[in-house]
């Protein structure tokens, strides 16, 4: 039982991608200790996978409620822009970071209100901020890349703790906190209930509106954290490019992780695994030396493979074989 659960399609896919990376680049698993931190391709996969992984944490909750949040990329840009402009204007990081997170929170709240109280379909409601949000971010930076030297922000993006890159620590922390929050309280059950049948959830006494608004707000918050990390990483806020198209990667991560876009059952940890799979693939392309024009084709191929593996069809084929065995076993 334990073993079969560990051997889910996601784990197999991750192992597969890592193995291919290793075949293409034998040094893939080499890890060394350098300047007080771990150093190697595998660490890069984790570190670079962080923004999508963090987005995916929030996105999982949103998708579990049958929604989707297209604005996370833009919200990342906003958070980065706020933090960067504040520190360059001389505010200390301990003020800039909360303000940036607050801005991201507000963005999420806005989405939540549109979805819940205006009853606008999530994909459209968040499309608004996806388009306008990047504009807002650029408005804050006035179109330029705001470079900063604030040590705290830079530490958030590039520092390390116990040898691990700071972003990985933050993501791991967020993962733990959110898994505990949903699984050791009734939150997870409520989220699934609202995603499966919102009308029934309301009748069962679940405050579904409050829950939905909180979840979009949480997704905004996650995007804010990712935005600050990305800004800290390059020591600057690039409003035009930060988080560009990452919403698609985040959704993809969630789906690869096995959460259905139709809402209901979800697993945050699996979504994070999905994010790591995507990054392993990207890093694999980088170290393997493929010409860049093949990047998208490779990506498409891997996605198709993973989805084939996960498809209910595969499950049904297995089931059909088992049933016919069961039945023939009976007659004999």
């Amino acid at each position, binding site marked *: 039982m334990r073993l079969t659960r560990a051997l889910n399609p996601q784990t197999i896919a991750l192992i597969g991608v890592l193995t291919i990376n290793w075949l293409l680049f034998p040094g893939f698993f080499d890890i060394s200790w350098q300047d007080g931190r771990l150093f190697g391709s595998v660490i890069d996969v984790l570190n670079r996978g962080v923004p999508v992984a963090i987005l995916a944490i929030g996105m999982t909750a949103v998708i579990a409620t049958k929604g989707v949040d297209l604005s996370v990329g833009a919200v990342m840009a906003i958070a980065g822009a706020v933090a960067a402009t504040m520190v360059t204007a001389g505010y200390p990081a301990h003020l800039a970071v909360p303000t940036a997170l607050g801005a991201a929170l507000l963005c999420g709240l806005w989405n939540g209100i549109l979805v819940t109280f*205006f*009853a*606008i*379909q999530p*994909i*459209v*409601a968040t*499309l*608004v*901020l*996806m*388009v*306008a*949000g*990047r*504009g*807002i*971010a*650029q*408005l804050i930076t006035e*179109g330029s890349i705001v470079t900063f030297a604030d040590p705290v922000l830079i530490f958030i993006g590039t520092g390390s703790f116990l040898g691990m890159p700071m972003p990985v620590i933050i993501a791991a922390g967020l993962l733990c906190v959110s898994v505990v929050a949903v699984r050791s309280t009734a939150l997870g059950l409520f989220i699934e209930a609202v995603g499966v049948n*919102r*009308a029934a959830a*309301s009748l069962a006494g679940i405050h579904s509106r409050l829950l939905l608004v909180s979840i979009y707000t949480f997704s905004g918050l996650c995007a804010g954290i990712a935005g600050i990390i990305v800004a800290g990483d390059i020591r600057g806020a690039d*409003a035009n490019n930060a988080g560009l198209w990452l919403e*698609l990667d985040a*959704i*993809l991560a969630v*789906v690869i992780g096995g959460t*259905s*876009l*139709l809402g209901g059952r979800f697993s945050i940890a699996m979504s994070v695994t999905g994010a790591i799979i995507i990054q392993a693939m990207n890093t694999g392309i980088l170290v393997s030396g493929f010409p860049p*024009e*093949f*990047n*998208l*084709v*490779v*990506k*498409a*191929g891997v*996605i*198709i493979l993973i*989805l*084939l593996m*996960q*498809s*209910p*069809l595969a499950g049904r084929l297995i089931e059909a074989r088992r049933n016919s065995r069961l039945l023939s076993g009976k007659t004999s």
Partner: protein
Amino acid sequence: MNRSLRPLVATAVIFALAYAASALQYPGMFSTRVLGNFLTDNAFLGIAAVGMTFVILSGGIDLSVGAVIGFTGVVIAVLVSWYGLHPLAAFAVVLVICAGFGAAMGAAVHYLQVPSFIVTLAGMFLARGVASVISQDSIPVTHPFYAAVSQSYLLMPGGGRISVIGGLMIIVFIVGALLAHRTRFGSYVYALGGNTTSAQLMGVPVARTTILIYTLSAVLSGLAGIVFSLYTSAGYPLAAVGVELDAIGAVVIGGTLLTGGYGFVFGTFIGVMLQGLVQTYIIFDGTLSSWWTKIVIGGLLFVFIVLQRLVFSASSVRARGFWKLKHE
């Protein structure tokens, strides 16, 4: 008036009002020239949006649209410029390729039961990817046929032009509307959007219909790619990035529900025109910075959606009465 037509009429009225308001501010916008430009400049978007309408009506989504446009352009350019094929022959070839591509996506959606969002996302990567593998550079198409097409147009009074591609878009909209509202296939599309299980039990050929829907969307994206190629006389793998989002926006602004089952092809036309109007207005204004442009586009999208929401709920509260509001 038929109640279900109300959102459509509302959208049309919003467009008329918005156009009147912009024309008051910039009288130059009220000319056949600008109207003609609306048609020509949005032809590829409009054609792709018709396909998107079908997909959305059926409860799905197609993210591969922009990539297919880019891919089509590159293939046409390669066939015409490198292999000397006549453009019409090249068009036929790409439409067949697109049909196969769409059918494969539809089959994946149906048989593998993978959400269309993901299938078409993979399709998007694949189409863009193959296009850039074929050529990274933009390839010019120089062929007398292209010149002839771009020089043929209907002159309207006031100097406006209805170009071949603008006319083609109108034809696609008419055919699309007939297909959606007047054929069995159309009713199957709505049936899928209403409730797939019911549709299946009622005898709708779900597999065939799903495959046809994505085939139609891909073929129309291919046609949009042909139009784009005529529009720019070139093929470029990065062409039409993000057009799928514009198309989704047009469909939704046009009153079609993203959850499927409700909407009109003609609404999409108004949606496309509204987006064209917003862009033209911003250009006439000419003072918006890069960022204000984005903010204003997002803001207007918001306004249109909210307006529509209001109209839609106004029309449903009264007529659906007491027993449908339950589901809140």
